[in-house]
């Protein structure tokens, strides 16, 4: 089960409760509806007896319902198979079977059964509801369409109204969520999930949800699903601790509510805990609740034995043991810089340390984002816990890890500053904005997908921007929404000053809505804001957008010219292409073709100049940056060469032993001893073949920095590995000479 599975399980269970009435067989008077009604009212013992009766029926469908009610899922599955085999044209059995599979984490087969049901009966509203449940698990926009179809076919379908309310609230549309819940309650005054949505709306607005929770308890005192729905929305709105509290209430009401217990474990992990999550998740696993999130979270907990934890007053940093020594100095410095910068900027201090977890295996990181909306491709923040991909988790040049970390650290501060009451678009936008504030070369540049979205006028009004993150309507909309949100924050800063961004943070902390925050701080309506923002954006990137088709055509020609080694033409066309879309620093960019042509014409200065522009524009191919550093050295620009190599540390510090060594040499020659110590230390942490010379280089740097004891310790280690290593022997003798230390 992914993300909203607890919530989905509730809606699926309620869909189950809307079962078809089928009598007959040896089950006497018991019908699935009778049993579901008992279950819905918390009359567990009677429900159990009722389901047991169903299991004795001759009709395999009734047996399936009985086994399902008794949580004997395999038997239920087998009985459904028999039921469908006996009644090949029965759409309802397929829908019920699909709902069982959906509940048991098999959305693929569930979807197949719903489609089969629709092939038999295109007007089967329950089948569309099933399709909606499957789509909703992945925050897929089709969930809304399928729900609409279900309701068009059967406006009295309570569970579809409840699901529509749920989807609306996921999209931060509280008013619609309330309206849909009320529709459900009009049809069925005991629509428990509709009541839970009402309670969620109240608690999200910081109003007491008690009246609605009392109503739920009046129908079913052990309806843990109600609390789980509230918890789901709290987590979705970054209120992880509150969410955990409600998951606890859920399992207190119903200790066997495994989806809620699993979510409790997962969210405790997100808060940086290990012992209780393991206990909760193992309990789920041992009781047969083995969905992807539960199993993978347990695997992640097992993998923690391979991590090293560094702690100080401000930071808890977890790094994989294979790269811990190498990464620590770089990661720790970026965290400390971020804390210092944000404390000043946001005028606040964090309470307690920030925990940063860096995963070299992307799958370990991905476990953290299971069931969460949005991209979460590189990093994710849960309050004061940050999880992110290690630079070694991806192809070198894929991302700038320092920029990602700076982004996530912004979330830590903004979530804290707003007491976790901040819309997704604003915290993401501010985090994107902060990346380039930290360094203009950081952050992602406008991509072709974003240009197309702008050209097709697909950017969203600010008031609706959250939906672009939660429920994208087209592939790539999440990325487009990140870009748009970031640019909105750039615009606010450029027009009104950085203080207005801080004022907006304070507005959200005071529970203001986006329209209120914009009106109060910027003095205009969201509609006016959109209008003026789009004008500003057009001035900034309109030319690039307008040039896009010509750029695409020009780039193709450039590729052909470069392939044919027509370097004079490459220089001419390359410059045209570059100017049409200067932000394009991704694969097959004009900068690299131009540099290649300059080098072919033995013009090192020309190549260095164009690659410097690439670098300033945020180009991050380690190989290209190494080429630039080499050119800079050839041109006698050793300081620039060192700065270029240092940039690679923020992209790929893991696979670049030679870069560390060479940067150490350059910095040692430039009297940057601190830098040289870090770089030679990185060589050593890379487990080089020639450990003796790595240790000796580190000793040299410490010696130059006047850190005699560390110099001696390292030179002795070098000589332990290679006792006859002459330069190390000479350094040892220098260190032994008491005059040296004066």
């Amino acid at each position: 089960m992914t993300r909203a599975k607890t919530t989905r399980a509730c809606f699926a269970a309620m869909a189950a409760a809307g079962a078809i009435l089928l009598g007959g067989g040896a089950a006497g008077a018991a019908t699935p509806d009778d049993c579901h009604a008992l279950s819905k009212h918390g009359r567990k013992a009677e429900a159990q007896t009722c389901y047991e009766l169903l299991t004795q029926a001759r009709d395999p469908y009734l047996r399936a319902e009985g086994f399902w009610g008794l949580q004997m899922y395999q038997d239920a599955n087998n009985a459904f198979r028999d039921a469908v085999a006996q009644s090949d044209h029965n759409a309802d059995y397929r829908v019920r079977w699909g709902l069982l599979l959906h509940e048991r984490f098999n959305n693929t087969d569930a979807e197949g059964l719903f489609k089969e049901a629709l092939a038999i009966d295109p007007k089967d509203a329950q089948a569309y509801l099933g399709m909606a449940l499957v789509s909703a698990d992945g925050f897929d926009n089709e969930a809304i369409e399928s729900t609409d179809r279900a309701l068009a076919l059967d406006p009295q379908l309570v569970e579809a109204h409840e699901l529509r309310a749920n989807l609306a609230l996921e999209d931060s549309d509280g008013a619609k969520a309330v309206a849909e819940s009320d529709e459900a309650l009009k049809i069925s005054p005991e629509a428990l999930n509709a009541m839970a949505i009402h309670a969620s709306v109240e608690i999200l607005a910081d109003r007491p949800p008690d009246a609605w929770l009392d109503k739920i308890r009046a129908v079913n005192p052990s309806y843990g699903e109600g609390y789980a729905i509230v918890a789901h929305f709290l987590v979705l709105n970054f209120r992880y601790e509150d969410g955990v509290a409600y998951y606890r209430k859920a399992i207190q009401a119903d200790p066997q509510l495994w989806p809620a217990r699993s979510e409790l474990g997962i969210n405790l992990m997100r808060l940086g805990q290990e012992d209780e999550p393991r206990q909760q998740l193992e309990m789920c696993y041992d009781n047969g609740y083995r969905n992807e999130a539960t199993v993978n979270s347990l695997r992640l907990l097992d993998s923690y034995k391979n991590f090293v934890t560094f702690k100080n007053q401000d930071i808890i940093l977890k790094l994989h043991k294979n790269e811990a020594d190498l990464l620590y100095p770089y990661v720790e410095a970026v965290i400390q810089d971020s804390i210092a910068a944000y404390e000043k900027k946001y005028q606040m201090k964090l309470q307690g340390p920030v925990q940063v977890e860096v995963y070299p295996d992307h799958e370990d990181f991905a476990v953290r984002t299971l069931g969460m909306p949005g991209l979460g491709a590189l990093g994710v923040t849960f309050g004061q816990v940050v999880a992110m991909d290690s630079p070694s988790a991806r192809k070198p040049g894929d991302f700038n890890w320092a920029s990602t970390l700076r982004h996530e650290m912004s979330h830590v501060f903004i979530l804290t500053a707003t007491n976790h009451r901040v819309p997704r678009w604003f915290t993401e936008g501010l985090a994107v904005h902060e990346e380039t504030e930290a360094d203009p070369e950081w952050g992602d540049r406008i991509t072709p997908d974003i240009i197309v979205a702008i050209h097709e006028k697909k950017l969203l009004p600010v008031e609706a921007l959250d939906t672009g993150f939660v429920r994208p309507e087209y592939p790539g909309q999440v990325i487009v929404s990140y870009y748009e949100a970031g640019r909105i924050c750039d615009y606010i800063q450029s027009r009104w000053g950085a203080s207005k961004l801080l004022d907006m943070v304070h507005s959200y902390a005071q529970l203001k809505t986006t329209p209120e925050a914009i009106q109060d701080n910027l003095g205009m309506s969201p509609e006016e804001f959109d209008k003026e923002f789009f004008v500003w954006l057009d001035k900034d990137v309109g030319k690039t957008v307008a040039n896009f088709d010509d750029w695409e055509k020009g780039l193709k020609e450039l590729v052909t010219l470069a392939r044919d080694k027509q370097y004079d033409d490459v220089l001419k066309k390359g410059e045209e292409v570059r100017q049409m879309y200067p932000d394009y620093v991704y694969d097959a960019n004009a900068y690299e073709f131009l540099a290649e042509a300059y080098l072919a014409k033995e013009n090192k200065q020309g190549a260095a100049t164009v690659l410097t522009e690439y670098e300033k524009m945020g180009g991050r191919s380690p190989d290209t940056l190494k080429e630039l550093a080499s050119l800079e050295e050839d041109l006698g620009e050793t300081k620039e060469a060192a700065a270029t190599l240092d940039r690679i540390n923020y992209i790929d510090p893991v696979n670049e032993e030679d870069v560390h060594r060479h940067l150490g040499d350059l910095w040692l020659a430039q009297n940057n001893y601190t830098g040289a110590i870090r770089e030679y230390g990185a060589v050593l942490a890379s487990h080089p073949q020639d450990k003796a010379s790595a240790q000796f280089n580190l000793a040299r740097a410490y010696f130059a920095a006047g850190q005699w004891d560390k110099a001696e310790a390292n030179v002795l280690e070098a000589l332990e590995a290679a006792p006859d290593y002459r330069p190390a022997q000479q350094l040892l003798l220098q260190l032994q000479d008491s005059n040296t230390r004066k």
Partner: protein
Amino acid sequence: MNKTNDFYDSQKRLATEHAVFEDTGKNEPVRAPATETGEGLLLSTFTLIRLGSGRAIASDPAKRELLGKKEDLEQKIDALKYGKAAMSEEDYKQQLTQALVELAKVQQELDK
């Protein structure tokens, strides 16, 4: 040598030539000196041939004594390294430092 071994291991190939040490008379040859059994420790210090400046120094009577001292120190350092596990860290460090400093001084004399 480890890289070579790794190659043959990873390729599941049989190395056609592989020298081994057997210097304890136990008929248990090893490919690398083994501190656990002592096998190979003696032979690993045996000089087969001196090349370059080493040969020149060996033929200089004035430096022959220093060369002997150097070889003694190298053997002492090897012995220390092999016996590291049985020593306290402090004792090991102290003796190793002393031997390495002496070796560096001897080398300095030899290089004059």
